[in-house]
């Protein structure tokens, strides 16, 4: 773990200030605040994983929670991911709402049997008598110059598994609300936190999920839309579809494209299962062009699923095939090469250019 990350996490205590209205906070603070409230609101919630207790997690997402809520509700486990997830199944069967943490994306692999064969299927296997209200927090994606297995994008793998739901916030506000929403659901949710965005601050309105009126779907009367995608930037010429850390990069790209007179819409998918097909249809139905951006490798990535959903709803009006700008079909590279791997501004701009210049044969 790079020293700067752990140092940065030790700072702010603004998560304790419970006031209404919009506050500036980092995603780490927003997640920490959400977990604190979840523990306070639901006595059946338990948080556990490697170093989640006294240390507060390697990213400090659970910072201070053990001291506040006790060692029974926030605890360290032995260092074994299958054990953490297998234990979650039994706790859920006993009526608890586990929020386990896998320390890094790549370490979800040792727990794959428990996630795929057990957590995802227990509701089905038991004919609905043993629901699995488990929110699995997974610090995800790359961009922090970390060692091997610390920069993986597992969303397509999880989204492929019947019985799982998958969500990834791109900003502190959504991180707060989506985590609180996920932790109150009766089904298992894989909560993918973009670790490269943990320390960027942004506005969080704890009392109103639909910040800035940007939500276009769902029932906003109960505190905002938390089940679908979010239009992060309105535009007319082309839709960039992204999630997690790629959303802020796409917003940067949109600003640059605007200088050339290209009006880009950015759709933050948020939910990777279920994918908000209506939001895709609405956005691309308007712009008639789309580029999907993700960090995960290209082949069988979620970009293919998104492209198919867009084709299904917008085929007749599309000006060009849906383009994908993604990571490559290579193992996630070492830090020195990760800027070559993760879609960068130039590659996304090239993708936009290919779509705009497309001419029917």
């Amino acid at each position, binding site marked *: 773990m790079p020293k700067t990350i752990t140092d940065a996490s030790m700072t702010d205590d603004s998560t304790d200030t419970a006031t209404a209205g919009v506050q500036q906070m980092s995603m780490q603070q927003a997640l920490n605040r959400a977990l604190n409230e979840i523990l306070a609101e639901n006595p059946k919630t338990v948080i556990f994983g490697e170093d989640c207790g006294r240390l507060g997690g390697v990213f400090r997402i659970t910072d201070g929670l053990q001291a506040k809520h006790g060692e029974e509700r926030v605890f360290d486990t032995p260092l074994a991911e299958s*054990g953490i997830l297998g234990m*979650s199944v039994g706790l859920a*069967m006993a009526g608890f709402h586990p929020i386990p943490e896998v320390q890094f994306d790549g370490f979800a692999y040792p727990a794959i049997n428990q996630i795929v064969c057990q957590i995802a299927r227990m509701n*089905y296997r038991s004919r609905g*008598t043993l629901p699995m209200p488990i929110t699995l927090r997974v610090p995800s994606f790359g961009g922090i110059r970390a060692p091997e297995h610390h920069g993986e994008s597992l969303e397509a793998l999880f989204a492929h598994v019947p019985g799982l739901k998958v969500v990834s916030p791109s900003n502190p506000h959504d991180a707060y609300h989506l985590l609180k929403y996920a932790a109150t659901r009766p089904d298992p949710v894989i909560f993918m936190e973009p670790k490269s965005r943990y320390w960027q601050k942004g506005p969080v309105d704890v009392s109103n999920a639909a910040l800035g009126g940007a939500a276009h779907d769902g029932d906003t009367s109960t505190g905002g839309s938390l089940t679908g995608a979010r239009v992060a930037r309105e535009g007319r010429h082309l839709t960039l579809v992204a999630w997690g850390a790629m959303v802020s990069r796409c917003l940067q790209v949109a600003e640059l494209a605007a200088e050339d007179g290209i009006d880009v819409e950015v759709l933050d998918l948020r939910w990777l299962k279920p994918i908000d097909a209506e939001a895709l249809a609405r956005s691309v139905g308007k712009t008639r062009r789309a580029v999907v951006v993700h960090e995960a490798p290209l082949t069988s990535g979620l970009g293919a699923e998104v492209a198919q959903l867009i084709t299904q709803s917008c085929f007749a009006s599309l000006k060009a095939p849906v383009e994908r700008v993604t990571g490559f079909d290579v193992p996630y590279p070492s830090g020195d090469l990760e800027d070559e791997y993760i879609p960068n501004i130039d590659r996304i701009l090239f993708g936009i250019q290919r779509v705009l210049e497309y001419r029917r044969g």
Partner: protein
Amino acid sequence: MTTHPVLAAVDDDAAPLTHRQLRELYALMAAVRHLDTSAVAWQRQGIIPGYAPELGQEAAQVGSGYAVDRTRDFVFPTYREMGVARAMGLDMVGYMSTHKATWHGGMYNPLESRFAPIQAVVAGSVLHAVGWAHGQTLAGHAKGETGVAMTYFGDGASSQGDVHEAMNFAAVMKAPVVFFIQNNGWAISVPTERQVAGGSVAARAAGYGIPSLQVDGNDVVAVYEATRSAFAHCRAGNGPVVIEAMTYRRGPHSTADDPGRYRTLEEERLDAGEDPLERFKQRLLAEGVADEAFFAEAQRLAEEEEEAVRAGIADLGPRPGAEMFSLVFQEPTPALQSQATAWREESEHA
């Protein structure tokens, strides 16, 4: 220097089994034996597509299942615990329905039965037992009142990493779990000596600081008493216990297996030892606990029960296809709902 943990001296005022209880144990074993051998016949007759017999393991299963307190304990089975299910009083049509290919986990209610859904991943549910047991600790029951989890697995499953993780977690957390291993000599075609380094799963418990008991798994009373002691140890807050019941899988791994390819009938005869059911019968006769009339009546009841279960199984139709979709989530996704709609419309057309 390794220290060998021992069962805590629990204040277990357990009386010896009464004659009535001994007869009940025999009746359960007889019912299980008859249902088990009948289920193999059902498969040969085409009533069910497959079955995993537990022939020879009746004492291990009935003896341990008989010790469960169904008001507060919870059992985590594999796919070969029919005898435990019967001893715990499960709805046996609901249990056997998994072998009819009606529903993977079985049609019984696991919460009401205190018996988790049938588990097909070898060692898959051992960690679930640890989580459930730790939940009992978190629930803060009074000392001596806590529920205990009992997880079943075999010598083959003991090779799985999840078993190590489960024993280590349970010991660290002092979780009230009984790890009940039926060492039946075979993991499909691979004998214990090629499976279990050191020759004993129970011996491994010492490494975790967990007390262990290796019992004659073909002696139903010994199994019951060991399990009862283990439950008392867990219930008093002393942490987990490992029991290794040494028994023998007298039948094939499943109705699709062919043991002739890996062991001879002569080896089976020598290795299996005395039949646990016959052995218990001779003991009850010798001790004057039961007479021939009792055994005849037990057999008659077993046959009556098998007929009722067979009729129930034969009557089980396929589940409505809509359940494929409706039971995946508590809150179904729009995509799944539209797949269900498309399936319904297209299957109605066909």
